[in-house]
């Protein structure tokens, strides 16, 4: 089947770090030891501004112990089967599943004391992406929607993209905090997907059965088709439909958008460096969108949390085969894609003004289950931060000897969202005016 609006990739397609250095030089030794002074934090935040944010959303709950917070001295029913390796950061060890990321740990910081108030996927997903529980409503806006409202649309590209197969969901339920929330559906993300071969498509347009790629350039035919489809919808959905299709149409007829989506403009070396996975190619697309000026891009690891179920697309919800899947699939894919994105952003100077984050909604049980896997664990998990003034090479927060709870300041999704907002220029005043992220504080230890 030809995906209308897709951009076929061919097989052979044809930082400066001044802000970091300025910040570092302005900071007393206490900061470098992990004890920032209020003045240093204020200075770092003042200098650090993210033109774009790329959030790698590790949907399903990746195991913190089996990736970036190993516990080799814990008893066998906790520590798991993976060996540990050194990183470039003193005192930071990863499991052997992340050798490329270990080699690059001096370019990002790891938070090991994340906590979520919810331990179920859709609910924890909403907390992870909005900072607040779904109930009692109303559902708060996704961090990307907040940035989107603040920045507005500049050019043909929407300000808030989702890259992935669909809105992240548990089998029957999607994350309610996926989009605009209290800010309205106008601030929902615009969904595009990238195949493992780098073919980009716009799922919104797949419902137009009579369209072909050849007709895409015929504006009049396309508008007629859009109108025909619109009349099939009830009145309540017309406004949302108009918004989605106008955006989609704008993208398809915009040279700027088509260029941003065309991964064949990248060298074969660059494309392959990300790995031939949907997540890897999605990360490359995210870099191109950030480069094109899109303020907020969320790359979804999968649509479904389920990792091993009919129709599931290998989310991080590893209730069974946790160790096999992390070793066979998840670890190598994430290690390669994250490292390639970090390298690419570094080489292009994007890390100066682009914030890169990787996190899921929670971690997994430190104690290995009686099915030789790990269950949900919201009391301690991890996130990874780089760019836009974040001081690299830091470990923020500590978990206890078994990885069960933080032993230093817990970091919440609300704090993550507030930090994102602050770095993208959504200050306290703007947040108050939007009535978002109430009570949030910045993760000062990152600066």
């Amino acid at each position, binding site marked *: 089947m030809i995906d209308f609006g897709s951009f076929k990739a061919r097989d052979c397609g044809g930082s400066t770090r001044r802000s970091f250095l300025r910040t570092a030089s302005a900071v007393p030794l206490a900061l470098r030891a992990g004890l920032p002074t209020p003045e240093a934090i204020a200075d770092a935040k003042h200098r650090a501004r993210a033109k774009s944010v790329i959030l790698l959303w590790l949907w399903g709950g990746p195991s913190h112990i089996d990736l970036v917070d190993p516990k*080799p001295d814990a008893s*066998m029913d906790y*520590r*798991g*089967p*993976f*060996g*540990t*390796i050194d990183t470039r950061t003193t005192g930071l060890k990863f499991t*052997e599943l992340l*050798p490329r990321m270990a080699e690059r740990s001096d370019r990002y910081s790891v938070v090991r004391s994340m906590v979520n108030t919810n331990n179920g996927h859709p609910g924890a997903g909403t907390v992870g992406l909005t900072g607040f529980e779904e109930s009692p409503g109303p559902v708060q806006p996704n961090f990307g929607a907040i940035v989107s409202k603040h920045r507005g649309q500049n050019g043909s590209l929407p300000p808030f993209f989702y890259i992935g*197969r669909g809105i992240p969901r548990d*089998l029957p339920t999607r994350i309610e905090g996926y989009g605009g929330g209290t800010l309205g559906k106008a601030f929902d993300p615009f969904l595009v997907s990238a*195949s*493992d*071969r780098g073919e980009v498509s716009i799922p919104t347009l797949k419902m137009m059965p009579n369209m072909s790629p050849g007709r895409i350039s015929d504006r009049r035919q396309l508008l007629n088709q859009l109108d025909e489809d619109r009349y099939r919808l009830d009145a309540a959905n017309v406004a949302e439909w108009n918004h989605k299709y106008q955006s989609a149409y704008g993208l398809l007829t915009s040279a700027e958008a088509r260029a941003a989506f065309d991964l064949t403009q990248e060298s*074969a*070396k660059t*494309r*392959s*460096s*990300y*790995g*031939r*996975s*949907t997540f*890897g190619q999605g990360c490359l697309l995210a870099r191109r969108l950030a480069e094109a000026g899109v303020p907020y891009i969320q790359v979804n690891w999968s649509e*479904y949390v*389920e990792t*091993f*179920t*009919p*129709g*599931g*697309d*290998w989310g991080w919800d590893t*209730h*069974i*085969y946790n*160790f*096999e899947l992390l*070793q*066979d*699939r998840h670890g*190598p894919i994430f290690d*390669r894609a994250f490292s390639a994105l970090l390298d690419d952003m570094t080489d292009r100077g994007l890390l100066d003004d682009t914030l890169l984050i990787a996190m899921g909604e929670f971690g997994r049980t430190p104690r290995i289950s*009686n*099915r*030789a*896997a790990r269950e949900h664990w919201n009391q301690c998990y991890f996130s990874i931060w780089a760019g836009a003034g974040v001081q690299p090479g830091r470990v923020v927060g500590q978990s206890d000897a078994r990885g069960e709870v933080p032993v230093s300041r817990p970091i919440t999704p609300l704090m993550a969202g507030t930090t994102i907002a602050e770095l993208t220029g959504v200050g306290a005043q703007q947040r108050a005016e939007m009535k978002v992220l109430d009570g949030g504080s910045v993760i000062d230890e990152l600066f």
Partner: protein
Amino acid sequence: MSSFEHRTSRIEHSTSHERTSMLNVERSLFNVSVVFVARPAALHAAYDWRRSMCDVTVAIVSLCISLSVIADAYAADPERLTTDGTFKRDPVFTDSGATLVYGYDERPDLVRMLKMNVADRSVTPVFEDAGNRHNLEPAWSLDGHWVAYTQCTGNLTARLVIHNRTQNRDAFVSHSGRGGTRSPTFSPDSKTVVYAFAETGPQQLWSVDVAAQNKKQLTECSGITNWPTFTPDGKTIVFANSRENNYEIYSMSADGSNERRLTDNAIMDIRPRVSPDGNRIAFVSTRDGNYEVYVMNLDGSRVQRITNSEERDDYPTWHPNGTQLVAVSERDGDFDLYLYDVGPTQLASGM
């Protein structure tokens, strides 16, 4: 430019495959150098006949090394069997090497099993009506009558399927509750399937007959146990276990006794596969920084690195000829099946 600089420059400007080849040749030359340097100084002394004997010895060793260079050269230039680049796993030969079965990502949400006619490289599904379920980890009985594999049957649940090819009939091995079987393998007499499963705690090895009856637990180990593989005489099972903080490879008698540890690393040694002659084990290790394929003798001695790439090499399986193996190698981001020549056992044990 010195010869070393020249070689380094060539390596830096070569493709990954060329680089692998050159590195292996370099390694072989290094081996030759070591042999000559290691020649005992005493043999240069007074007794000419000893010197003569030594020269003969050196000549013989040189011949062996030359042959090993040939073997390495073959190993360094693997034959690429697929070119589509899709993620693949679990290759296994059947039909005396005429057919290669493997799992691949048909869609982002579906793993299928394919069989390749090795002669013309044509591929067809193992099961035409496989539905919307993941099927993976195929094992083929030596008599050709049976196929065992892991099948996803629902959310977070998988079962072991034993398919009777002659009667086109399936038998299912299920355990209580959620969970999944792993890594089935047939005993050499084609009567028993051994696999891994975690029922109420640490993952153990289990066995069942081909009618999916007489299920019994074979091991009582701490840690995670996985990837069983038989020696051709059926007397020994080789497997991996994580009790020593990471996966190591062990062997034991088929009844579970006489366990022996074969590897000792701080990081993983996984997916052991006993060679058809029963003398060697192919396995995967991250001991050199990423997933690479190695071969060692059945007792764990004489470890030989087969692949050498900054990218991943995984899922080794022996060709029935015992001198080659197939692995899934990631090259420039693509996952394809490659045929590696590892040389006959006698050369490897003589190195």
